[in-house]
């Protein structure tokens, strides 16, 4: 992984930078001893790590503003960090950067059930947002797999999704307003508790900008009343094509499940060995969940089961109890842990048009043979968001590189069939160098010009999202 050459002038001023940061932050909020910054050397893309110059942990918007103002003044790159759960290296530091962690910004500021929103500081974890409104039977809809740990700040930076976004949308569809601190320390408010922000849709632009346009310190989020009930059905098929056709038929029939999850045979076997949730041993497994009143659930599941039967499933199991529902979901939720038990793995995040499902899975199988690495597929079938898990051995020289090349080929395939490189994880450093397979130079230039407006000196998370060659001049590096 190529990263920019650290700025020698910045490195040489480390003591001065740390001293200035200490003047605006309380004791203990500036971390600069190498053994203490260790924990911030990487995020969940653990294959890459780099010690930062320093780490700051501000506790208020004012402190964030003061930190950014100093870094701006001294020309120091800043890498914002939520909880460090990015699978794309979104929070990977460079040697000359200050990591700005929002972990201490975790208060609930306002809860309003009449207007159905919650305002929180951005370091609060995704699940604890729902937790804060749970006693009133409300929830915050986006549910990334890492929701126990991941911060709202990171969710906004990456526009995170989750298993239930087919019905509820992703972060951007549930975000009403933000307090944003620009690189020079300016604090701006975008949107609020009203439904649509005025003027240009800057809120939509901020969401998914990977911490490159500003640091979000507070967020107003839409909350919803929980549905009366939810129930999954599990179905197994002997061919991927048939499972894909079944998904398409369910959608065409006018049913909108909250989730349609797909697992292929390698994934099913690994999950079974790990969790023993009782999944059938078949080529393709679907978990389809519907929500609503009992009448609605019965009606929708009836339609779904009828469609499934037309595709000759090898297994069709409707949950009859809470316990059974939990078991069905256990198989799916165990997927990542199960793969981790077998080996190191790399989790991809490409998206394809649902109609290309069978073709893409066949090609991935062929490529798996060519590269000599096993791959298991688990994905959100309703929206075509694939998560191929490529298994490799981190201790075997060359295996990581082979795995990355295989992953890149899968993502290129996703783009070729009309999809995209990333559906919910973000580009980070991981997919940075593939951007020109999806975008023309003009498409990318338009995005770079947006960053020019928010961060003219290119100091905020500058080595991410775009191929380094495309941003060299802007970052002040010889091209």
């Amino acid at each position: 992984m190529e990263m920019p050459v650290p700025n020698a002038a910045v490195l040489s001023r480390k003591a001065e930078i740390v001293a200035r940061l200490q003047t605006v932050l309380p004791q203990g909020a500036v971390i600069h001893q190498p053994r203490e910054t260790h924990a911030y050397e990487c995020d969940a893309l653990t294959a890459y790590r780099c010690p930062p110059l320093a780490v700051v942990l501000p506790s208020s918007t004012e402190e964030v503003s003061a930190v950014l103002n100093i870094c701006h003044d001294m020309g120091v790159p800043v890498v914002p960090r939520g909880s460090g759960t990015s699978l794309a290296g979104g929070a990977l530091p460079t040697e000359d950067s200050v990591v700005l962690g929002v972990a201490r910004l975790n208060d609930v500021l306002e809860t309003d059930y009449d207007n159905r929103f919650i305002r929180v500081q951005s370091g609060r974890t995704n699940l604890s947002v729902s937790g804060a409104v749970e006693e009133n039977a409300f929830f915050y809809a986006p549910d990334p797999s890492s929701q126990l740990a991941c911060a709202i700040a990171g969710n906004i930076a990456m526009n995170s999704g989750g298993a239930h976004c087919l019905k509820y949308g992703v972060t951007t569809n549930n975000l009403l307003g933000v307090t944003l601190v620009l690189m020079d320390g300016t604090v701006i408010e975008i949107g609020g508790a009203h439904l649509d922000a005025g003027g240009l849709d800057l809120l939509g632009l901020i969401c998914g900008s990977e911490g490159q346009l500003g640091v979000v310190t507070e967020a107003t989020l839409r909350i919803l009343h929980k549905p009366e009930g939810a129930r999954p059905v599990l179905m197994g098929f002997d061919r991927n094509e048939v499972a894909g056709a079944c998904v398409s038929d369910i959608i065409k029939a006018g049913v909108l499940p909250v989730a349609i999850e797909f697992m292929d045979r390698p994934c099913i076997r690994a999950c079974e060995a790990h969790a023993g949730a009782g999944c059938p041993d078949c080529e393709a497994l679907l978990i389809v969940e519907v929500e609503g009143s009992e009448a609605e659930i019965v009606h929708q599941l009836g339609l779904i089961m009828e469609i499934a039967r037309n595709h000759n499933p090898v297994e069709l199991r409707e949950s009859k109890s809470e316990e059974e529902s939990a078991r069905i979901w256990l198989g799916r939720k165990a997927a990542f842990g199960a793969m981790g038990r077998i080996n190191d793995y790399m989790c991809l995040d490409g998206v394809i048009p649902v109609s290309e499902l069978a073709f893409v899975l066949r090609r991935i199988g062929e490529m798996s043979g060519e590269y000599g690495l096993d791959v298991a597929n688990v994905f959100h079938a309703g929206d075509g968001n694939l998560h191929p898990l490529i298994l490799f051995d981190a201790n075997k020289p060359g295996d990581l590189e082979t795995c990355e090349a295989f992953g890149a080929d899968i993502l290129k395939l996703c783009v070729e069939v009309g999809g995209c490189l990333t559906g919910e994880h973000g580009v980070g450093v991981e997919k940075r160098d593939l951007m020109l397979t999806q975008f023309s130079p003009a498409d990318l230039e338009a995005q770079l010009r947006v960053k020019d407006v928010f961060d003219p000196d290119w100091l905020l998370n500058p080595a991410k999202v775009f191929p380094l060659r495309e941003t060299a001049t802007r970052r002040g590096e010889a091209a």
Partner: protein
Amino acid sequence: MMKPGSEAELAETIAAMRGALRIVGGGTRGVGCDGEVLETSELRGVELYEPGALTVVAKAGTPLAEIESVLAAEGQRLPFEPADHRALLGTDGVPTIGGVVATNVSGPRRIQAGACRDSLIGVRFVDGSGTVIKNGGRVMKNVTGYDLVKLMCGSYGTLGVLSEVAFKVLPDVETVVCVLIEGLSDAAAVRALCLALASPFEVTGAAHTPSGIDGEPVTMIRVEGFEESVVYRAAQLQALLAEFGESSVETNPARVAGGWRWVRDVEAFAGCDGDVWRISVKPTDGPRVGAALEGARLLFDWGGGLVWAETAAGTDVRGKLTEISGHATLMRGDGFARFQPEEGPLAAISAGLRAQFDPRGILNAGVMG
């Protein structure tokens, strides 16, 4: 008037322009400015429609009605219920999908299914220097690079001229009914709407008119879906709202559709003389807006969060609402800027973005500030 027949021709036209341009889809949204007219109506046609993937892609000048009928043939629809502004604004012409996107037009279902910007998944456009740019695509989950799709939606042609748009669509529904409560004050009505929206019964429309067709206040709550479920949820809502007095359930499909079209298109203010304002606030502030605009005719949508107000021409609505956070857009009338003026750094960012995408300032100049 210029009517490019292809995206390439659109790009050439803009690159060669020396003066200001006024971008027109069907010309029904009342977006006015000086400049030579550039119409997109020749960029027409549905490019791709996959009902099984819930996605549709169309050229920007495609009539909205054409897209709606293509979707209806497969039992699907645009989720955000775009309004027809012709009667309200006294315009004629054919509403285009590009015009809907450029103005982010979203109807009553916005409260549950999101706005136009939430359904939009891809755009192609030509910026002010004549460069073709694409962003997003045809898949409904996509976080690859910055989300210029959202930025373009509601940018009123000031950042670029749309050539192609892609949407996530939804299944149409089997049954629609409307729970009606009559005679409520604005404050009581918004309390009732908030209670309904905070329930698990999936309300897809929540509106209130202080003066319905027969002159009396009517509060309207829409429920959609499979018949059995709709009947159940309507009854649950009636029980939930018992404290607000007697309610009824309108089940006649034509009357239900007509009632919501009346709200969507703000038919009540069509053909009158006053200014028409569209005010966005948090729902419980809706009645405060009404009180501050004493004498105005009102229509509350989005549970009270969208207030349509017809005021005497020249009334400074923004001046009367300084205590309430949100923003007001002048939809009809010409005494004030169309959009709520932005402050300091926010205004600088908006101006900076316009300057990047339209360095010569020729696209719908002045429309957004």
